[in-house]
């Protein structure tokens, strides 16, 4: 701390000597300075419409898919699989259309991942059959010899714990995921209907709820899709090929089979910029 009495210091006019002799001044400067970057980069996205261009078709997960998402998170799948396709030619060839911001707008927590030890699965839905997924979860190397994925044999042996399903939906509804009171109160029949463990009577009600075009969140904000848009049909079946009970594998495959299928991409439409360079809006 030698030459700081030199008044022609690099930072002219600010007496650094004063700053570093006063804990309150130093502390306040630091506290303010470290806050700037985060505020500038994070806060505007909450207010700018351009940050998340609107697109039709993105719906909240059904109770069964939501449980599948929780298993995806519990097993740490996101550590090796990304769900964010970048706008590059090779990624389009390999994984499909690049991911849109709105496609993950209901994802608490986001599941984009940061590493591809395995492939991106943002558009995995309907790419493989349930039978493939069942075998792949039991023994990944039996279908992909090069794979380094662990075996997840316990998923099909474990009955799905549904004690938190309603709670999950209630918490998400609080955070403006547009689950209606009706969606939440019917969670159990919807869950069973989608896994085809009921008598088949629940399917119509389930489809009516999750193939609807009007979504209202707890703030009263309404998202209305156009008449010409047909929402992607739900997958309703015994995903683990066993209709006797709902297993964790049912939930996980239900989640995987809907990934990236909500938006209907049209040939020739630029979902990134319109011709004026503005983000796409429909």
């Amino acid at each position, binding site marked *: 701390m030698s030459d700081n009495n030199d008044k022609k210091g690099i930072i002219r006019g600010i007496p650094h000597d004063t700053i570093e002799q006063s804990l309150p001044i130093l502390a306040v400067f630091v506290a303010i300075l470290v806050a700037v970057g985060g505020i500038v980069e994070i806060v505007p996205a909450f207010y700018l419409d351009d940050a998340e261009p609107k697109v039709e078709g993105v719906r909240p997960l059904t109770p069964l898919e939501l449980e599948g998402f929780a298993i995806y998170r519990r*097993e740490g799948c996101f550590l090796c699989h990304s769900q964010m396709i970048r706008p590059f030619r*090779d990624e389009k060839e390999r994984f499909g259309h690049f991911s849109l911001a709105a496609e993950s707008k209901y994802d608490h927590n*986001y599941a984009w991942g940061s590493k591809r030890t395995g492939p991106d699965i943002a558009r995995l839905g309907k790419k493989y059959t349930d039978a493939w997924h069942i075998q792949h979860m039991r023994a990944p190397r039996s279908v992909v010899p090069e794979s380094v994925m662990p075996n997840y044999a316990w998923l099909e042996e474990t009955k799905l714990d549904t004690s938190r399903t309603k709670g999950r939906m209630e918490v998400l509804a609080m955070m403006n995921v547009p689950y209606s009171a009706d969606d939440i109160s019917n969670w159990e029949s919807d869950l069973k209907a989608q896994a085809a463990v009921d008598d088949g009577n629940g399917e119509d009600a389930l489809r009516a709820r999750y193939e609807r075009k009007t979504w209202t969140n707890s703030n009263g904000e309404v998202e209305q899709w156009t008449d010409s848009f047909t929402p992607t049909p739900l997958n309703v079946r015994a995903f683990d090929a066993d209709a006797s009970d709902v297993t964790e594998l049912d939930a996980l495959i239900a989640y995987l089979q809907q990934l990236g299928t909500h938006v209907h991409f049209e040939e020739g439409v630029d979902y990134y910029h319109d011709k004026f360079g503005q983000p796409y809006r429909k």
Partner: protein
Amino acid sequence: MSTVAAKEEYNYDIVKFCVLTGIVMGVIGTAVGTYIASELAYPWLNLDIAEISFGRLRPVHTNTVIFGFGGFLLYGAGFYMVQHSTHARLRFEKLAWAAVALWLISMICMWITLPLGMTQSKEYHEPEWWIDLMMAVSWVFMTIVYLATIANRKMSHIYIANWFFMTMLFMVTYIFTFNGMCIPVDMTFSYSAYAGIHDAMTQWWWGHNAVGFFLTAGFIGVMYYFVPKHANRPIYSYRLSVLHFWSLTFLYVWVGAHHLHYTAIPDWTLSLGAGMSVALIFPSWGGMINGMMTMSGAWDKLRTDPVMRFMVVALAFYGMSTFEGPLMGTKSVNALSHYTDWTVGHVHSGALGWNAMIAIGAMYHMITRMWNTEMASAKLINMHFWVHLTGAVLYITAMWGSGVLQGLMWRAFDSYGNLVYTFADSVAAMHPFYALRAFGGFLVFVGFCIMLYNTLKTVSAVKAGSNVALSAAAKA
């Protein structure tokens, strides 16, 4: 000016506890790291047991090395250097012990809950909300103790190491709090308060600044105390330290966006992140140069003192990884490096090269000073140095190789415009690199075991009175 506290009046008990715990954390963290690295090379090691499968065990590794090893080093070195650089005994010692105890309890809870699958799924912020709360309370206690001790200093100026530490304490409070915002469903599960792009931005604001403040500002503070002290030389440039302190404090915060290049985040945010990432090389290298040049006139110590070697090589790795960081933060390089092992290699050149080596150097320094003894075996410190360095270099180069290879294989097209490789081809190509990486990690683990053995031998020799006391020159 009031009287200067004699060194005997410092609270060393808490530092001793933190340093010993930190070394144990290093052993555990690298053991788990070696295991999960081996799982990637040899997947049968997952043994079909849910609790030890890669996806559940990986956060145990990251949290143990960052918050266990790194955390206890920061608590220990922080309590040590704040006393030495203020000539004042720690204030609110019970609060300090509470902070340390809470941190340790959090780590133990983390070891139990993560293998059970209770995770927030935000990288480096995985433990569930109630563990988060304990860590936050511990951190606030630590901050209070630290600031109160500085306020009680026996000289007019606040030493630069404490500026950096203060920056870390504040920023980590911000990012930990805001990234941790969630609504619990129950004790085992919570949902982030943000979704999609907002969650992603908040996460990487946290993710990169956990690196930028916890692992950089805090460790730079450690460097600013222990390198000059161990080399017995003054800091090279006071002005450089002022300049790079304020610029690092301001700039680091912005660069998290480079983890999200070409994703659905607005372009302007990413460009800002890329620009700031490039600019960040100046404050980073300011610290590296200041540390390195402090060695002027003391370079001969490298021949005789393996602890000095740890510190200098740490600075070299810091310089290298903070050159690599801005490179990877630019969009065109990131297009190749993102999602690949190159990122993992980069992190470990910072973590194994910079963080671990400066931490290990500071730990050896503190052990000898606090127990007033030479280490039981200088040869074992030297062996630790070479084993650790070899392991780190093998790890980093393996990940560079696999990362660049992955990136190139993914984007390779043949002359007909078809993809040359399937994704599975690239996975198969990773095997030799993953095996080498696991071996490199194993060497780092062996190094930590050597350190633990040497330390326990030293402490028991002190207890038995059979140790060699520190020379007067070293004690000064």
